[in-house]
């Protein structure tokens, strides 16, 4: 099976490991991801202003590309998934946004929300099936006590995101079980990590993440997993290291026994020069 895949900017820079582990795992599960030729930043933050159109356009372009490719649009980064899903919903339901966005873009075929946006986890659950993933596991993660950290972007607003019960979600726990590990349920798993507030008020983000980690640890979690690069940034930055934090895709990569075969992901590009130069090149160099 081939799906159109929208990696987003962060997965090309800071979160290259999230992307790499995700692609390699799906390859091992028999799924090919195809990036649209000219994708751009999703917009990063969904604009709440009702008359804000311009910042939604790049998301619409990616959605339209997936439609033209006759495939659902697969996302991995929580923020991209959030923005693309909500813009898609606007294009379906909000006539004002739909008309204006199409007037701006002048696409060959106007776009009105036809694409199905699915998150990587939904792809695993609904298109492959957690039971099939459990069968493909070579290294069951037995004995590992893992807390799912959802954050807010995947779950809310629940009516639009349609991802899971926003107050008592279970998709990541089901994923952890499929890999042979033990999920740890803790109350703070759907609380905000602080998000972009970290830029303005680092102390607030530290308070949030500390509360999350402490709560997970108090319920017996030894590690946390997340799908969101921003959550990862905040959690790692303020963690004292007692609780290991990794991406959902890395866990899958390990369970499928791919690390033995393919090794670690290439190092993430953190420098401005590297980002400007385009990290994909850097990875190609390394691979060579």
């Amino acid at each position, binding site marked *: 099976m081939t799906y159109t895949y929208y990696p987003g900017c962060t997965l090309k820079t800071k979160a290259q490991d999230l992307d790499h582990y995700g692609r390699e795992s799906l390859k091992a599960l028999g799924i090919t991801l195809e990036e649209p030729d000219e994708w751009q930043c999703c917009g990063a933050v969904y604009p709440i202003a009702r008359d804000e159109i311009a910042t939604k356009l790049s998301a619409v372009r990616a959605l339209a590309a997936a439609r033209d490719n006759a495939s659902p649009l697969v996302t991995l980064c929580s923020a991209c998934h959030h923005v693309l899903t909500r813009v898609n919903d606007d294009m379906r339901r909000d006539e004002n946004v739909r008309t204006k966005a199409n007037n701006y873009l002048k696409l060959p075929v106007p776009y009105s929300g036809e694409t199905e946006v699915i998150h990587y986890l939904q792809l695993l659950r609904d298109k492959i099936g957690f039971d099939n993933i459990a069968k493909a596991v070579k290294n069951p993660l037995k004995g590992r006590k893992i807390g799912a950290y959802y954050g807010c972007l995947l779950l809310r607003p629940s009516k639009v995101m349609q991802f899971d019960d926003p*107050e*008592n979600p279970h998709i990541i726990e089901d994923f952890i079980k499929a890999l042979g590990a033990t999920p740890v*349920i803790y*109350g703070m798993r759907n*609380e905000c990590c602080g998000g972009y507030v970290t830029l303005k008020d680092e102390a607030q983000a530290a308070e949030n993440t500390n509360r999350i980690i402490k*709560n997970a640890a108090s*319920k017996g979690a030894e590690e946390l997993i997340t799908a969101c690069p921003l959550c990862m940034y905040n959690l790692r930055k303020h963690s004292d290291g007692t609780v290991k934090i990794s991406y959902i895709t890395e866990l899958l990569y390990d369970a499928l026994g791919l690390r033995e075969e393919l090794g670690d992901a290439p190092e993430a590009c953190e420098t401005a020069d590297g980002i400007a130069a385009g990290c994909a090149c850097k990875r190609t160099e390394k691979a060579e």
Partner: protein
Amino acid sequence: MHKIGVFVCWCGSNIAATVDIDRVVAEAKVQPGVVFAKDYQYMCSEAGQNIIKDAIKEYGLTGIVVCSCSPRMHEATFRKAASQAGLNPFMVEIANIREHCSWIHKDKEEGTEKACVLMRAAVAKVTLNTPLKAGESKVVKRALVIGGGIAGIQTALDIADAGFPVDIVEKNATIGGRMAQLDKTFPTLDCSSCILTPKMVEAKSNENIRLITYAEVEEVSGFVGSFKAKIRKKARYVKEDVCTGCGVCMSKCPSKKGLNEFNMGLNNRPAIYIPFAQAIPNVAVIDSTQCIKLNTGKCGLCEKVCTAKAIDYTQQDEFIEEEYGAIVMATGFRPIDASKFDEYSYSTCKDVVTSLELERIMNAAGPTGGVLLRPSDGKHPHSIVFIQCVGSRDVSGRGKPYCSKICCMYTAKHAMLIRDKYPDVEVHVFYIDVRTPGKNFDEFYRRAAEQYDVDYIKGQVGKVWEEDGHLVVRGVDLIANEQIILNTDMVVLATAIEPDPTARKVANMLTASIDTNDFITEAHPKLRPVESPTAGIFLSGVCQGPKDIPETVSQAGAAASKVIGLLCKDKLTTNPCVAHSDELLCNGCSCCEKVCPYGAISYDTHLINDHGVKETRRVALVNEALCQGCGACTVVCPSGAMDLKGFSNKQIMAEVEAICL
């Protein structure tokens, strides 16, 4: 020669504000056949009715049109007035210019035009009306009460006291309902069981009352005065008349995994059980999903230990068929599922309980013997947080839009009882508003807050989570305008109440209308609050809307008095607007028989003289006692033989023509 009178009502400003009354009167005066037209502020008042009566006599009117409210409101009033003046009551037509016109229009010009159209249609129809005579039907002097909670019990007791036999059909193994589960009742704090169980005993011993427990009404047919019901009595696997209620079977039963429904699933009960010590009837019942004998054929312990020989594993569901003159719905309520609001962590934290669960924890016959212990570890809590309006007044779509009415008071009761019995326990209550209208209610709430130091916090809770063996509550204090985080040992959710899920099924069976929340609709929200719009169906208790025990008991009495009023009559006047078949047109095709929901149509083969042509044919016959005038047969009849008295095809067409004029 027709002499029609038209009477236009202002209904105060209800109609007059949106309809130009003078224009309607002026236009009425020029309608063919109309000899008199007049308006009045309140046509339904005595003075208004006198205008009608005087005009009928003075002008010798042959038919009248009243332009007023819906016929459901006052058709009976005006028909009565007409007949008092000597006019056949079925020569009265109502043009509904209130509900269908003035209430829904804002523009006076449009409203007036529509009122004129409705008036013209009614005049056109009334010229084709024929005098009809109402027949009579019997009244079966027995009532059916569906639901055996306090509402059903009180209704049945009142009806029985008036001398009429009553059957109570209760779906559970015992009567008593929700009230039996309560510990104390507000605002007097008297013990719920102490005031309820004597009534339960009275219901059992009253010779006019028959209790049919562990049973559900399956089918209802017929109409006011003469309903027929089929009741399924579910297999108990215990002979009701033989069991002595000794309880030995319960102690010997090896299958003890069933959740104790009476204790809200907080502990377990055996597969054979008596719901609670004061159950009526005090007879065991076997839960067929849990019983080892019924599922595997092995075991049979209860049969061996039963000295009364009451166990019968071969028992089957039985059916009871009975006729009733009136039916009372008293189907009650249940709390909503609190896991829809998992920001309060009801699904994941054992120490988050609903108020009804707390009620069982506080009750001496409950799972903890009445000692306040938290469910997770059985320890004494030092702090409790109550959260009000869980699912009530909800706009998110997960809960109910209405106020559940009883939660403010029972939360104050719980808070006060806990502070009284365990002064070391801190009690906080988060509320949106505290609503305490009712006799001695506000005083009660103030006592909780002022004398018992219950900490009332105006604001809502955003999240409850568990940490290091206790609960954390994050909420907002709207008066201090700050976020607050409280560490606590237990959280109690004042969950909204909703109609029992059986209410919808029962209402459909009885053709009683229900609202969007599945509460049963009253015939009139103010003036006929205990009757359904369907004749002969009455409402008692929370099935009609949220209410507390005093209100439920009052309504139960009111419903009983309506039933008694009906059962006192020997005969009921039937609606003469029934179907009839023109045998010259009928070809005996049976279409009408197939659609008739009342089984009112049969066939007869006899000699027909069609203008001199004589032939023997099979033709339809309508049983006027059974026909309810729904008109379904008139629509399906391919030859146009079926017609409805009072609503004939000609009359309807005349109305349509008048509208399209």
